[in-house]
């Protein structure tokens, strides 16, 4: 029952872009066009490759005493030299990358899970649910983060799991606030009302309708969170609040810090690695922000 004057010119303007392009594939196109973000992504992939494949190609045990202490980089055949008790820094850096990245990503996941759950419930249900959840969020937000995480680690032991959880627990309020703000905004949009008119249950509204549309700023926050979790772990390690049997970049800095004056490279090398990794993650996060931001996406 299509009238004849509709079939022709009406649809003509869209003929050129008949291929379905999802919001995600469009975001990727935009991301690819962003040079600094692509450099960040390239560096990040390099670091990840090093972390995954590196220790296989360079099987020296990072805890084994292989040579005399404080052998400078390049001397005696050790590319990055040895640390204060004569362990190979290359092996330490490669294995340390694994731990630093895993802690960063895992802590970011914990942060997102708690933050999104709290923010989504608060923003969706409003009323007393929101009141209670946001008061709790504020409580966690005003806690001195470093001190609080030190307490957790001190109480429950300095295992990687505890460190990850500690970082997650002190970091989630920011995510909760962002998520709540997005939910408050999106729940007023007509397509949410339309889904209600189409009979969607509250769970479906939250998880399938609102959450996917709230994701962009949360994804960006997750990327930035990964960077700051790596820094946070390094900070805790530097303070000695870490598992001495696990090698991470922060751990390398922490264990060598007393000898910083006589062998600066033992601290500088992991320091630069952390800096580069966090910078790369920040560039990626910034690129994601531009690519996913609907205001910038228009034409």
């Amino acid at each position, binding site marked *: 029952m299509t009238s004849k004057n509709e079939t022709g*010119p*009406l649809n003509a303007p869209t003929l050129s872009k008949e291929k379905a392009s999802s919001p995600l594939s469009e975001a990727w196109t935009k991301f690819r066009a962003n040079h600094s973000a692509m450099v960040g992504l390239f560096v990040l992939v390099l670091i990840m490759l090093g972390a995954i494949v590196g220790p296989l190609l360079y099987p020296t045990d990072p805890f084994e005493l292989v040579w005399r202490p404080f052998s400078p980089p390049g001397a005696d055949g050790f590319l990055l030299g040895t640390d204060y008790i004569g362990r190979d820094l290359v092996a330490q850096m490669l294995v340390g990358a694994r731990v630093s990245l895993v802690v960063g990503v895992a802590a970011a996941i914990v942060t997102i899970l708690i933050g999104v759950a709290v923010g989504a419930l608060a923003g969706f249900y409003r009323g007393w649910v929101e009141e209670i959840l946001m008061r709790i969020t504020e409580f966690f937000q005003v806690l001195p983060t470093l001190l609080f995480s030190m307490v957790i680690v001190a109480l429950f032991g300095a295992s990687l799991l505890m460190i990850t959880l500690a970082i997650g627990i002190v970091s989630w309020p920011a995510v909760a606030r962002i998520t709540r703000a997005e939910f408050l905004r999106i729940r007023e949009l007509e397509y949410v009302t339309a889904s209600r008119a189409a009979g969607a249950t509250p769970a479906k509204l939250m998880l399938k309708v609102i959450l996917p549309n709230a994701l962009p700023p949360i994804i960006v926050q997750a990327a930035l969170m990964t960077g700051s979790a790596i820094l946070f772990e390094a900070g805790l390690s530097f303070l000695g609040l870490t598992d001495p049997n696990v090698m991470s970049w922060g751990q390398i800095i922490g264990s060598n810090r007393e000898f910083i004056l006589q062998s600066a490279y033992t601290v500088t090398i992991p320091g630069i690695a952390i800096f580069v990794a966090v910078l790369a993650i920040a560039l990626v996060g910034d690129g994601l922000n531009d690519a996913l931001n609907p205001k910038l996406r228009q*034409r």
Partner: protein
Amino acid sequence: MSFLLKVENLRIELRMRAGVAPVIDDLSFELAHGESISFVGESGCGKSMTALAIMGLLPEGIGRVASGKIWFDGEDLVAASPARLRHIRGNKIGMIFQEPMTSLNPVYSVGEQIAEVLREHQGLSRKAAWAEAIELLDAVRIPNPETRATAYPFEMSGGQRQRVMIAIALACKPKILIADEPTTALDVTVQAQIFDLLRDLRRQTGTSLIMITHDMGAVAEMAERMIVMYAGRKAEEGPVDKVIAHARHPYTQGLISCVPHLVAHLTEERQDLNEVPGIVPGLAEFGQGRCLFASRCARATERCLTTRPEEIAFSDVHRSACWHAEGM
């Protein structure tokens, strides 16, 4: 007769990812002292761009006047310096926009915002400017202007905010007032009040009015002449009554007949609305050497698809850019 504003072969180009597009393509028109004209068309036809070009407010780095002249009071605005344009904007040409909420600064009271314009452009003292601001609020028929002058934009209704915008635009007694969809965001009873106000102010001050709108009814009520724009080009130009009674361009006819206008004597009978199929082409198609309306036009012939229609004059005042204008 000397014209207050004379636009000659104006071409405005917008820079896009895929190249430049002529968002205004060879536009010429005149505006006499005290005259009221309307630009009509769907969104994306270049109506607002024309206004911004006259104001020297084209989006920086994206839009530019590629060729043509805008003569205002004997001066070419295309060649004018930014400082000169600022002076003209403040003193000679005023503009009001569609959304009065976003064009007012939320942190200053409306009186302060009017007074500020007066001090800047007329060099009035603080006290004189405030007194004049209250006069202006009274002139745009805001009740209790002394107290309302201290109100902030959020404390006012949409209609009152638009009145404040008109007060600001009129503060320096401009020769031209440009109104870009001034009542689109307002209720119809408030629109009627604003139209009344604009009509009265024109009578009192002799200001010329350029109104941009998509509403044929508003054109019929407010303007003496109208220019129908389509895809950056002038489709038809002429006296409002003449064009509405006998449009010489299929697009104008479509614009008039596709809207269900109120009729004075309603009957049971109801026919389907006349449809203009399709939508305005995207910017990428602007500027091609053919009739850009042809794809939506029931009269289109081979010639329309290959050659850009020339303007045909039906009297010294009525012109249409359509190959079939004479047969209509």
